[in-house]
């Protein structure tokens, strides 16, 4: 399910529009992940707090969204572009890949909340595909 040229353009366009709110959306998305899917907190046991809305969660959500934006710039070759991030996730973090889908869903919900008009079904499918491709690229080194 790779992205068409049109969908790549749609992704770049929407993320451009989103840029001023990207920190908020990243922070919210991770907060919602740990709230709606509490099992995901297992990856953050080393933090002082992994509860929704807490400072470490929000900060990390911003970091993750930064990574997503970086990936938008590498949309034409995610596997190559995300090689070192993939190694990080494979050998150090070892996040079960099912969680990428859960976080993607939370990101989509936040995008929809903040940009109800712009997040049309066409934008939704392009962004969903992109996030899925991103997750695949992150899993590249897993096994």
């Amino acid at each position, binding site marked *: 399910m790779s992205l068409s040229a049109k969908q790549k353009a749609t992704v770049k366009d929407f993320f451009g529009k989103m840029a001023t709110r990207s920190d908020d959306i990243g922070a*919210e998305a991770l*907060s*919602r992940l740990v*709230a*709606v899917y509490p099992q995901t907190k297992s990856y953050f046991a080393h933090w002082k707090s992994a509860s*929704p*809305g807490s400072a470490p969660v929000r900060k990390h959500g911003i970091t993750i969204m930064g990574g997503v934006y970086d990936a938008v710039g590498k949309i034409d070759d995610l596997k190559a572009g995300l090689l070192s991030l993939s190694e990080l996730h494979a050998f150090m973090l070892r996040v079960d890949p099912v969680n990428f889908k859960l976080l993607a*869903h939370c990101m*989509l*919900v*936040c995008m*929809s*909340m*903040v940009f*109800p008009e712009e*997040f049309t*079904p*066409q934008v*939704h*499918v392009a962004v*969903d595909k992109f996030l899925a491709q991103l997750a695949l690229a992150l899993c590249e080194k897993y096994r």
Partner: protein
Amino acid sequence: MVEWTDSERAIINSIFSTLDYEEIGRKSLCRCLIVYPWTQRYFGAFGNLYNAETIMANPLIAAHGTKILHGLDRALKNMDDIKNTYAELSLLHSDKLHVDPDNFRLLADCLTVVIAAKMGTGFTVETQVAWQKFLSVVVSALGRQYH
């Protein structure tokens, strides 16, 4: 049996009390057919699903979206026994409609996105948690009688 707090019940009831079934039903089903195009396999008799524009303009799809959303009313009225409330519907989807139960999750996700767009900041973290729990129970109940 699923335990619901008073807060969760209030949140779910509140969402449904202000729900525009036609608008949200239509938008959710259309979004599902567009975002997960393989779901169109169940709608062969629904006319033109050629592209996003025709899907969104299709009156049969709009009507069906409304119907599906009203189907959730049963769960709302019987929150303490959603499993048995949907036993018959589950069998219908399994034996007559032959719907892969994963599709219930896909539609539920689209419904969440549409409601989030409608409610904006009103779709708080607490709301999403309760809503997700409600939909998970519904999805599970609908898949339960498959054999």
